[in-house]
């Protein structure tokens, strides 16, 4: 997707937080990435290194916390965990599953000093 612009958004938030907390260096950033967030992790890592240059986050480690995909099975009438938007229901095997969660893309926290 547009990992470069996502990283610019991340930079804005974490550099702002660093200033607010009076910390000079960001050592580690943890992102929550939903299964269906459309984010390509290697591309995000690449863009992160490039975009953070010259900021307090230069050289910071980037860690991912994977959030599973969730869906609503119209046949079972309940929430299920799915691997893919098109996955069948893991319980009944039916195909009528609407993805309801897993598009998270959040900055959880950062370690700084």
């Amino acid at each position, binding site marked *: *997707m*547009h*990992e*470069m*612009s*996502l990283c*610019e*958004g*991340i*930079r*804005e*938030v*974490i*550099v702002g*937080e*660093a*200033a607010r*907390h*009076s*910390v*000079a*260096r960001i*050592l580690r950033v943890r*992102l929550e990435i939903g299964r*269906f*967030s*459309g984010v*390509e992790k290697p*591309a995000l890592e*690449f*863009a992160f290194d490039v*975009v953070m*240059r*010259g*900021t*307090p986050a*230069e050289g910071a480690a980037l860690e991912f916390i994977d959030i599973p995909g969730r869906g609503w099975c*119209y046949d079972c009438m309940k929430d299920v965990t799915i691997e893919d*938007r*098109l996955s069948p229901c893991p319980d009944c095997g039916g*195909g*009528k599953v*609407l*993805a309801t969660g897993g598009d*998270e*893309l*959040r*900055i*959880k*926290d*950062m*370690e*700084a*000093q």
Partner: protein
Amino acid sequence: MCTVCGCGDAKLEGHGHSHGHSHAHGHGHGHDHHPHEHGPDCGCGTEVHVHRPDPAQGRDGGALHFGQGPAGVEVAGMSQARLIEIETDVLAKNDGYAAVNRRLLKALGVLALNLVSSPGSGKTTLLVKTIQALRARDAARSVTVIEGDQQTSNDADRIRATGAPAVQVNTGKGCHLDAHMVQHALERLPLAPGGVLFIENVGNLVCPAGFDLGEAAKVAILSVTEGEDKPLKYPDMFAAARLAIVNKTDLAPHCDTDLDLIEANLRRVNPAIEVIRLSARTGEGMETWLAWLDAEAERASPDARAAE
């Protein structure tokens, strides 16, 4: 992947800083068509460009400072590292602008639709025919258009030829419109209560899915020549859309396209999606589409909300 996208040279056609040519405009440039508010940290004034932080503007150039930790001292061997909770969506800033746009559009009673598709699906032709049909039924109907493309004002020119006000947003290297670009485009359009605003996104089935512009609904347009499995190949976009228009149905017999299979694949990705089969060229399905538009515009209009 568009690794260079979002680089910040997006501009509104005719209003960018670096245009080497001028356009004849049929629309006003005033900034006071209607009340508007700016999103967080905008401070754009009348300049029209999309702000991106300058990568060179690090807070302190990456300098190392000692003794500035919470303890105010530096003790060898003791880490001052600490955890700062953030819990912020990466797209929070875009979503902030989108919320402002949505409030403005709602206050005005304007139905805003975000039209998304691959390049060449026939979005602009469909829009031209739609505007002509809406105007033929009601010449006073307010229809406005925001056109997103990487380059050229060709599409906005085609829309303006119908008499509808249009603003072209050229994203430069960007692969999608974002809510901030749309906010500036809104300032330049004469939005009227009960009107319809079409936002024709950059032709791209991947990136625009993630960027809320403040629209009431995304409408995905898919032409029959693109293959029945397109919804399966690009599920994010079709999952995000409320309505799918299967366009160029007049070509289906020539391409051996199975329209039922397209529809089944759309529903696999999004069981709740509405589907309209249409040919902008022959007019097939246009009435269904116009009826859908009328119903949505009715829901968005101030009269309908007053009755609630």
